[in-house]
């Protein structure tokens, strides 16, 4: 069976969930071969094997942390040369997309970004994309070269499928461009203890209606009662009430949880672009005419300062 390269997104050996989802999708096309780079790369092998990787190609070098993007492209190119895969799958993070595009260009291949599903087809893998703020669904494929496809988080269920996961060292020689952009310093983000926004099963968001940074405590309390991640509209982020890393929408994160609860958010097209594919959508808004209500499965027309705390209390009571 053909091999499919999966680029591993990990932090010091801890594999992030979107990569495990990719392994599920990769198995529909062929045998997953994972590529893990940088500090802790070998530490990813157990998790990757558990989820279907037949082989794990690893390479640790300081270049991956010290320079932007290109060293990773060099490594993936070396992996493609070593394996001759039927496709290369990369998680759709901002960096993942840049890596995928440069790799595709070097391989003389087309690139598809932000797939939300993937199937085997007669002429290679067929990717489903959700475009124009998720108002259209397209099916596309790469028609030249080795398909390079980036896949959004939450596009497939993580499935255990134990495989050999044999670790092999990847030989990489860095290109001249590899050291072009130096990372002078890196400040890791502090963990809030809440689930990762793009990976969470439930997202509770606040918008301009929350009316102040201190009031986000109400949103956080609801999120915590549900074990959810916290999101924010751009209006709330621009006002400085919540960090940009929590922004949901076109220029923020795009989320696709089981449940999305929008509080004091009107539902502008750019916000919808980031949450419209959520399975169940709920909104609390005092304006019955707010466009967000066109999307909801359940909506409450009311003041969020009344409804949200009452909801939180009720959830806590029910959970005992």
């Amino acid at each position, binding site marked *: 069976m053909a091999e499919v390269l999966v680029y591993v997104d990990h932090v010091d050996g801890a594999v992030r969930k979107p990569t495990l989802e990719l392994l599920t999708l990769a198995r529909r096309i062929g045998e997953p071969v994972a590529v893990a780079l940088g500090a802790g790369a070998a530490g990813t092998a157990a998790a990757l094997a558990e989820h279907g990787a037949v082989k794990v190609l690893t390479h640790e070098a300081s270049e991956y942390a010290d320079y932007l993007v290109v060293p990773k492209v060099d490594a993936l190119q070396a992996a493609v040369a070593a394996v001759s895969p039927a496709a290369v799958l990369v998680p759709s993070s901002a960096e993942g997309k840049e890596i995928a595009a*440069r790799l595709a260009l070097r391989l003389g291949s087309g690139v598809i970004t932000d797939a939300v599903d993937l199937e085997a087809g007669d002429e290679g893998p067929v990717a489903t994309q959700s475009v124009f703020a998720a108002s259209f669904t397209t099916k596309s494929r790469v028609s030249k070269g080795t398909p390079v496809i980036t896949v959004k988080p939450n596009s497939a269920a993580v499935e255990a499928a134990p495989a050999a996961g044999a670790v092999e060292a990847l030989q990489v020689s860095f290109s001249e461009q590899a050291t072009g952009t130096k990372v002078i310093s890196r400040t890791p983000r502090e963990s809030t203890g809440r689930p990762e926004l793009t990976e969470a099963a439930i997202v509770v968001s606040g918008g301009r209606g929350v009316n102040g940074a201190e009031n986000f405590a109400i949103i956080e309390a609801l999120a915590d009662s549900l074990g959810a991640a916290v999101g924010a509209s751009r209006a709330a982020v621009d006002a400085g009430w919540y960090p940009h890393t929590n922004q949901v929408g076109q220029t923020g994160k795009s989320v696709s949880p089981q449940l999305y609860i929008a509080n004091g958010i009107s539902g502008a097209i750019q916000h919808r672009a980031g949450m419209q594919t959520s399975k169940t959508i709920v909104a609390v808004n005092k304006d019955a005419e707010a466009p967000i209500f066109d999307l909801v499965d359940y909506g409450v027309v009311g003041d969020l300062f009344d409804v949200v705390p009452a909801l939180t209390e009720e959830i806590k009571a*029910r959970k005992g």
Partner: protein
Amino acid sequence: MSLRIVVTVKYVPDATGDRHFADDLTVDRDDVDGLLSELDEYAVEQALQISENSDDDVEVTVLTVGPEDAKDALRKALSMGADKAIHVEDDDLHGTDAIGTSLVLAKAIEKAGFDLVVSGMASTDGTMGVVPALLAERLGVPQVTLLSEVSVEDGTVKGRRDGDTASEQLQASLPAVVSVTDQSGEARYPSFKGIMAAKKKPVESWDLSDLEIDAEEVGLEGAWTKVEAAAQRPARTAGTIVKDEGEGGKQLAEFLASQKFI
């Protein structure tokens, strides 16, 4: 010293309009008004600020690849303060994919001459966010992308990239390709004076032969990706909407419980 900045700007269908696909599965450009991609306004703004903060002699050129109407996007950028514009227009470009677009842009950038390329973080239609990285690869220069803060001094570009897990300070030598996010600072509105001045600024028109690109390398035929189907997402079925008369929170909890979220 002089510094030549090329800003890539895309002409896109208005996101608030009813966007859809034409029969050949390319974007229908006839039914929705086009405009300068809002995220490229941030690129123009940062290029103008680099220019204003520089002791060098700086020239800001805006470049677009797009149909006839794309001139509107160039005019807008010129009225914000760019010095001149280049429009790459050719019927054979219809349906070009990201790899092909980057080829045309890279050839045009090389022909124009550059020390710095400034792009937006993503277009508002394709939203791939890959063209700046592709330009860096093609031009063989550093990519310093997705910056929420950028500065240029003594032949060096510096910036801050806010990623998922960390915030990074980046540095590269010119020439380089930069892309900026919508966190980089509000874009200015064109002044009346700016709008009048823009009318007199030069707009060059190039076609594929000017860039020595074969028609087969671009367009729908030359694309390395193929869209096979596009379907409108079915409208969501009307949900239940209740008015809060004191019980809204409870009712919502009831709904969440019925859906097994609690």
